[in-house]
């Protein structure tokens, strides 16, 4: 009798141990849904007075005075010239008669919220900027610089036609997609540069704080307003430009625009912003 009871107790203990092992294994494995929930909860709990959809307005969601200036600026937005140029470029056919619209679903209108996506044929993350240059090359045109001017104008127009649409980034159950996601997440939280900052040091730990005269934007929804006109740059910049500048601002060596790591970070950050509206093109101090 006693023996059987003890045996049961031993089995139960082993069972608990096994369960514990299974749980810690789950915490180590890639779980985008759990990350998403934790990420969003962190921001909504830390900034209970900021409406969820307002996070896409970056520093303006954090600072009332900046917001007042921005509302006045939006009346006559500095990205207007780029937007007009983008619209014209988008409508102008390539030498072979095809257009940008032919490279995209729905002729490229209202699709910004689906980028970046994981391409299961090539096994890599495809961003809107990359897709635009591939579209040019497939039609026998020279690729654009990724950081500003033409690329910013095109993405400005594509974001504009997608305003209000909600980020809808999918991570397929494919080990390569999960690896890209995990790599992006790792890049985001890894410290680098002489200042030893990670992306998260500013945009997760310190949103709303001042860094010199700037107000740091929250990482939640941070890509929704891209591309942006930055007064500091005196012009438009793309997501590529933002990543490159962030890296050099912490005195690190930036990667090439559209490096695999940058695309993976964009994948990670965009997934974290699922459900938030596209608001680009934007203007920032």
């Amino acid at each position: 009798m006693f023996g059987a009871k003890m045996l049961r107790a031993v089995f139960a203990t082993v069972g608990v141990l096994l369960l514990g092992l299974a749980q810690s294994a789950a915490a180590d494995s890639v779980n985008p849904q759990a990350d998403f929930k934790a990420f969003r909860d962190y921001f909504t709990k830390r900034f209970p007075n900021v409406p969820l959809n307002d996070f896409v307005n970056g520093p303006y969601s954090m600072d009332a005075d900046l917001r007042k200036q921005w509302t006045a600026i939006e009346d006559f937005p500095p990205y207007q010239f780029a937007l007009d140029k983008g619209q014209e470029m988008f409508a102008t056919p390539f030498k072979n008669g095809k257009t940008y619209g032919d490279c995209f679903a729905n002729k490229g209108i209202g699709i910004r919220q689906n980028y970046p996506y994981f391409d299961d044929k090539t096994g890599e993350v495809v961003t809107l900027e990359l897709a635009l240059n591939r579209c040019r090359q497939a039609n026998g045109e020279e690729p654009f610089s990724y950081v500003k001017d033409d690329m910013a104008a095109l993405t400005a127009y594509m974001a504009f036609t997608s305003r209000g649409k909600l980020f809808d980034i999918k991570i397929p159950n494919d080990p390569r997609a999960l690896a890209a996601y995990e790599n992006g997440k790792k890049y985001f939280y890894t410290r680098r540069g002489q200042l030893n900052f990670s992306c998260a040091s500013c945009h997760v730990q310190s949103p709303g704080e001042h860094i010199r005269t700037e107000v740091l934007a929250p990482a939640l929804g941070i890509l929704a307003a891209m591309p942006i006109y930055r007064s500091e740059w005196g012009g438009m910049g793309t997501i590529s430009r933002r990543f490159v500048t962030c890296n050099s601002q912490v005195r690190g060596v930036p990667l090439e625009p559209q490096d695999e790591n940058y695309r993976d970070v964009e994948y990670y950050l965009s997934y974290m912003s699922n459900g938030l509206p596209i608001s680009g093109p934007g203007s920032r101090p």
Partner: protein
Amino acid sequence: MPSTIRVRATAGGDTTEVQALVQHPMDSGFVKDASGNLIPPHHIEVLEFEHGGKAVFTALWGPAVAKDPYVKFSFKGAQKGDDLTVSWVDNKGQSDSLVAKIQ
């Protein structure tokens, strides 16, 4: 080429509020390019707003004004539907102008 000028003029009460944005590099002549050569000065010298044949706002600009400048001012005596002419001339003799309806 689309116009380099964006303007919005709104009549309200007895004043008309005007906002305008002009696309221009506004190079001061003191900045060097990536290879170390001075970028020659290229900036707007005169920006003028005209209503009913009369200048209502004239700006004499130099190298200290920022790229793609923005202007906001108001004036009296205009009606909704009137024409407002905006024009600029730069130091290279280039120019642009636009006629906008006051809303």
